């Protein structure tokens, strides 16, 4: 399981298993708070290659109507890269979700991030920028959810280094308090 691709495949299998387990349940989305934890895998165009790590995320769900919701969220993550440094990431975004009427939803999000590249306890760079993404998830009647999201965002530096592009895939397991 040391291979990042294998690790990500295992996460996908876990997500699919959890979704199948509760496929009969019907979600009843409403306003409330959500707490998530998960794993992510990312790739950067120039800086570090691949990274893997974990994160926690909180959101607030505001229903527009029975089919749509707006979910502002915050995410804090930590990752290990192929190189000699680690990454601490903070993201703040707004996701629009379309609820199918059953337990499934599909979403798109816009976000800003700040990523710190660390070697030991020394922060070598602070990179930031906007991003966009897509997501899909399943939420049970008991308010537990599993979702997948993918984002792509720019990483700008305040110190004149060329901007790079990062893509990431996230698997989230969470609970919503309605």
């Amino acid at each position, binding site marked *: 399981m040391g291979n990042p691709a294998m690790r990500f495949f295992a996460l996908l299998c876990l997500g699919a298993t959890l979704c199948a387990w509760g496929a009969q349940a019907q979600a009843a989305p*409403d*306003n*409330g*708070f959500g707490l998530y934890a998960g794993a992510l895998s990312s790739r950067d165009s120039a800086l570090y290659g691949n990274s893997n790590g974990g994160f926690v995320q909180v959101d*607030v769900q*505001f*229903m*527009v*109507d*029975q089919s749509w919701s*707006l979910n*502002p969220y*915050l995410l804090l993550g930590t990752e290990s890269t192929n190189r000699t440094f680690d990454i601490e990431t903070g993201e*703040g975004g*707004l996701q629009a979700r379309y609820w199918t009427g059953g337990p499934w939803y599909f979403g798109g999000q816009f976000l800003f991030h700040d990523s*710190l590249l660390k070697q030991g306890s*020394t*922060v*070598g*760079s*602070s990179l930031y920028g906007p991003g966009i993404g897509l997501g899909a998830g399943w939420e049970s009647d008991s308010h537990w959810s599993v979702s997948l999201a993918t984002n792509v965002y720019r990483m700008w530096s*305040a*110190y004149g280094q060329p901007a790079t592009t990062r893509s990431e895939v996230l698997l989230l397991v969470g609970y919503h308090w309605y």
Partner: protein
Amino acid sequence: MKRYACAILLLCLLPLTAWADDSQAAPDSSASSNDPVAEFLKGQSIQLGLSYEQGTFKLNKPGSSAQLTDNGRTALLINYTTGEHILGTMPMKYGDAALAWSVVGSFGQQDTHDQINPYSSAIIGQDKGSRVTGDFLSAAPFLYMRLGPVYPGSDSFWLFGYGLGVAMYHFGGNPFVYTPQADGSILQTSMPITQHAVPFLYQTWRWQFHYGNWDVLFTGKSLSGHRINGYNASYEDYGLGLAYTLRF
């Protein structure tokens, strides 16, 4: 100096208060009864709290620069906000999503005493004996989108917005300025500076969640647009705060 800054703050609040009162005199027809948050935000408010934030002071000119930071600190959070002016709304299941603006006044203090040098971290400074301290008082129209309430009838909302305005900013100290040399070395020079209060361009971003009388705020502030000794001076501050909101 703090007494002086507080006096300025109080004086500046007066015209903002009058402006906000005027706005309340004319009923806002766009604040529908389906938007209880608009009722909460009709009046003025003061946020008092604490935030953990990091401020970075920068001097830049071609070929030479200085950066000092505070490496993160706990700071007082003081914001004054006028009544809300709604530009547009979209009905939600509970309440409305609204695009709106208000005027926000803030007071901030700077105590940057850790030098970021070319051989150290990009954002964590080292104590090398240099220091720049200062205060600023800002006022900015603040455009934002808000969603809420979370629960029907509750005083709760989320907002994200951007403000562009002016800050009266003064600072002074003895930063080290770094100048790369032709032989590859870097020359370090102490440059005492004193800047009396002058207007700076002020920009602010805020991610805020409000529940009851409490707010959690992620804020960014940037002051720029003024030169001293040939250097472009700027100050940036990013923080996470918890504040209690007083409405009146």
